[in-house]
């Protein structure tokens, strides 16, 4: 178990003061709210930690995910692999399908909206999904801005390739971060790269003088206080999952070892030929990542012949990369 210097409450104190600061310069709001507060939104992903969130396209896949021990499901119109193949504009999933999934399982339901698409997010909030993923897998609706997530009562998860992207999303009101990886490839290399970049950038902060940290905050385009909080914690101040290209139990365990709090598995499960066993195996390996014998056991549950074929990231043209969307 990892031990952090600050408790959840200490971190929330920081965000509460940030909210007070915003209120001081904007219209003052009553602080007596019970639901949709920063505390309630940041608390939700804490209970996903150590777990696997699986992409699904229908209720029967969602039931397989739940029975295997997934902590949540992400409802999509198409799996990222199919988004990549079909081309065209990728949008949020049909509300009817999301509702069907909501009625068929007890675990939390997440769904994706296009980057910057305020109204798709409002629709999903009204529908009652538990978390919204503002995702680069869908075609961005706004090339310049992300959604102002402080305005929502539902928590958001956002993708990031580096510390700057992560802290900007947190400062915009994101409650959870996931590495972008390169979705729909079955190739974990980009997820590894992004997780290592974030780790390296955080460790560099710890030895910085205040002056250097001010300069770094300007480069990262966030307040220096948020940078300082990250330096003290030696990790991102919100839950951070790995995503993009995770296809096997060993992939999941690798990302946990690199410091991820949990994993998203997109095409890796339902684009394989053994989704039921694979789902169980990835869950087992994620929660027992630091025990190689259990990861071995999990790895034995699947057959490499049945893994999704996968795409070598180097063969993708620059315009085919999803990760560069929304920085």
């Amino acid at each position, binding site marked *: 178990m*990892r031990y952090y210097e600050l408790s959840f409450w200490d971190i929330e104190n920081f965000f509460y003061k940030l909210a007070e600061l915003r209120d001081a310069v904007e219209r003052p709001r009553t602080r007596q709210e019970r639901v949709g507060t920063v505390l309630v939104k940041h608390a939700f992903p804490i209970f996903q930690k150590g777990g696997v969130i699986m992409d699904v396209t229908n209720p029967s896949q969602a039931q397989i995910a739940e029975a295997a021990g997934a902590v949540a499901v992400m409802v999509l119109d198409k799996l990222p692999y199919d988004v990549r193949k079909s081309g065209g504009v990728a949008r949020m999933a049909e509300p009817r399908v999301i509702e069907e999934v909501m009625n068929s399982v007890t675990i939390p339901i997440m769904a994706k909206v296009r980057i910057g698409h305020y109204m798709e997010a409002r629709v999903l909030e009204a529908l009652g999904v*538990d978390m919204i993923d503002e995702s680069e897998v869908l075609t961005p609706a706004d090339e310049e801005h992300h959604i102002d997530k402080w305005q929502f009562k539902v928590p958001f998860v956002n993708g990031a390739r580096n510390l700057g992207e992560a802290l900007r999303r947190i400062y915009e009101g994101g409650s959870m971060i996931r590495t972008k990886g390169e979705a729909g490839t079955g190739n974990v290399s980009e997820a590894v790269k992004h997780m290592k970049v974030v780790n390296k950038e955080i460790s560099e902060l710890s030895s910085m003088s205040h002056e250097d940290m001010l300069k770094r905050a300007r480069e990262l385009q966030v307040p220096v206080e948020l940078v300082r909080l990250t330096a003290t914690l030696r990790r991102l101040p919100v839950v951070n999952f790995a995503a993009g290209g995770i296809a096997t139990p060993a992939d999941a365990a690798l990302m946990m070892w690199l410091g991820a709090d949990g994993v998203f598995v997109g095409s890796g499960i339902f684009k394989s030929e053994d989704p039921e066993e694979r789902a169980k195996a990835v*869950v087992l390996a994620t929660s027992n990542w630091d025990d190689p014998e259990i990861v071995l056991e999990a790895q034995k549950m699947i057959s490499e012949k049945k893994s999704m074929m996968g795409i070598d990231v180097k063969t993708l043209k620059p315009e085919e990369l999803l990760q560069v969307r929304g920085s």
Partner: protein
Amino acid sequence: MKIGILAYQGSFEEHFHHLRLAMSSSETQGEVLPVRKLNDIKVIDGIIIPGGESTTLGVLMRRMGILDELREVIRSGLPVFGTCAGAIMLAKESADAKVKMEQPLLGVMDMAVVRNYYGRQRESFQETIDATSIGAGKVLVPFIRAPVISKVWGPTEILVQLEGRPVMVREGNALATTFHPELSSTPSFHGYFLRLVKR
């Protein structure tokens, strides 16, 4: 004193932090250990079952072969503290407001719970509860997709209530909350549990 935390999934690191705080503020010499395997259970004097997804916790406890053993040691007196999903795991009766799915549970406390009683994340809330009964005073805590304790019977006593519903209960050495003390400002709830373990 060795306290285990079921460390598959959920708020186990947050419990770790608060347990250490509670130990140092009560000057208790102790160690906190993650529990994942059968052998881990054999050396501990108490166990915390954290918040998370109760279905996931159940699936993993069965898969790792500790579900039956843990039930046995709790029945024979091992102190246990379950929060949110942990409370669901401890209840003898569990129902879901919407979907009926059979899930593996420990079933050791005389209480009935309804999962996701308040609704989805949209309905999750924070509230100041009055925990003077256990010496914690008034504390702001989050309830995240929380269950409700719909009924208690037998020796189970209600320690803290909110709007007429029990939110913290105790039966002998077993303690359950539907809220998250590990996300609060105080280690008092963990301190209360440590006192149970010491007895």
